[in-house]
């Protein structure tokens, strides 16, 4: 799922201070799964923001809604009526949802309430970890299903750097596995360590953001 987390409350208050009526909008897909922008978080943030704004002497009315999907215009359009008299929108969706809202509510300002930061899996209750970097050139078939782009701090393609800690964790954080340590272990268990001995050439990053903004047309679907 797309992972996001709340921006600092101070930053949100700063954005909303000058407004009179704000629509706070959640999304019931990814950001709900990662407990940042679903209905529960919208209904938590709304009273919290009200209290914080009141403390600063600002009287801002906050109305709320949570869409099934904020990244599709069909769903976003449902909000036009509800939001007809607001002077600002705050979205708790990922950057995609925020932009869909911004397109539809233009010229009313749409502020992001969260920072979108990763593509994650929920490893266990309350624990999310990055799994994909949308690099545009998947190597999972060569690394036994463990991604060295998203899960290695240096996106190394030819094995672990010298920073692997004695306990197999990454130099960047004691809580993060060195993914190359895991790739090698899995390869070894399968008796396929040799497949990692070949030098992997420099990667072509051009099918990701590095190649410019993504734009894909599928004629069969148009």
């Amino acid at each position, binding site marked *: 799922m797309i992972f996001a987390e709340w921006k600092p409350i101070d930053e949100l208050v700063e954005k909303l201070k000058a407004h009179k009526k704000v629509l706070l909008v959640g999304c019931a897909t990814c950001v709900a799964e990662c407990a940042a922008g679903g209905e529960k978080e919208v209904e938590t943030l709304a009273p919290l923001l009200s209290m914080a704004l009141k403390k600063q002497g600002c009287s801002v009315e906050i109305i709320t809604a949570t869409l099934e999907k904020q990244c599709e215009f069909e769903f976003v359009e449902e909000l036009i009526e509800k939001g007809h008299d607001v002077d600002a929108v705050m979205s708790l969706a990922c950057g995609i949802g925020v932009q869909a809202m911004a397109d539809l509510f233009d010229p009313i300002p749409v502020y992001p309430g969260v920072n979108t930061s990763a593509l994650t899996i929920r490893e266990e209750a309350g624990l999310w970890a990055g799994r994909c970097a949308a690099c545009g050139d998947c190597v999972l078939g060569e690394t036994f299903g463990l991604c060295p782009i998203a899960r290695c701090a240096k*996106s190394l393609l030819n094995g672990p750097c010298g920073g692997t800690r004695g306990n197999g964790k990454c*130099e*960047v954080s004691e809580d993060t596995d060195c993914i190359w*340590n895991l790739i090698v*272990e899995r390869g070894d268990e399968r008796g396929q*360590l040799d497949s990692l001995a070949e030098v992997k050439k420099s990667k072509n990053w051009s099918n990701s953001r590095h190649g410019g903004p993504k734009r894909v047309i599928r004629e069969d679907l148009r």
Partner: protein
Amino acid sequence: MKNLSGSNLEYTLASGVFAVTAEVGPPKGPDAGEVKEKAAVLKGFADAYNVTDNQTAVVRMSSIAASKILYDQGLEPIMQIVCRDRNRIAIQSDLLGAHALGLRNVLCLSGDHQSAGAGGKLNGHPGAKNVFDIDSIQLISIVKGLGKGIQESGDPISPAAPFFIGAAWTPFGPPEKFRTIRLKKKIDAGANFIQTQAVYDIKRFAEAMRRAEDMGLTEKAAILPGIIVPRSAGMLNYMNANVPGIEVPDEMIQRMKDAQHPKVEGIKITLELVDAVKNLSGVKGVHLQAIEAEGLLPDIINEAGLLPRP
């Protein structure tokens, strides 16, 4: 080994002399004088001098500029390049520039992550965007390619820019069974010499060397084990616990603890380590470091019987 690059280190190793390399860390400011001072202390005591590239992700004078300063002082630099800060375009451009300036040795590294910031002793730049367009092994391939007159993309250059190519080896880092394979990959990609993470456990290092030798790697590249002069039991403890890939035997830490004069004991240990690695099959030299105490190295190199340098 044929001397293709014009590197003195390459020549020394090719002629069978036990090589000595040392390290000169560039300053955090723009003062060339600081580099020259370190150069004056170490000149004549090693065959080549590693010039670090913003190590521990702290901004320092560029490796290429500090290397050129050393070069002008008559010391042969080993310009280090990390993959953290530059993409393949910038790195190749700098390599061509370095070659034009007369620099011939390059050490290819992944580089400490930008969150390192001198182990928390300085602010550093943890908010920096890292690059890692290529990894250290791909970097070796690229340097090798320039030596053949081909850029990474396949575009030709003329004349070619041959370098004597170095790489690092951390024999004790997990996953240990892969570390020799990774060394082989570096050598397959084009590494001519290898400097290792600091070695204190000779028994274990000897085993690692045997594995490398069994794979035929010591024939293809010159391996120079790293030795960092121990200064105190605390320092050894710290490295043992915190520096990935460094393993210090308990007896050595105890020995430093028991020593009346730990600094003298540290020099003794260094000399014993140099002696021990010299006798290991496949070892072609030694990479000596005295962190923030470069002044110790001339005496150590002298007492180790490694003078005069060719």
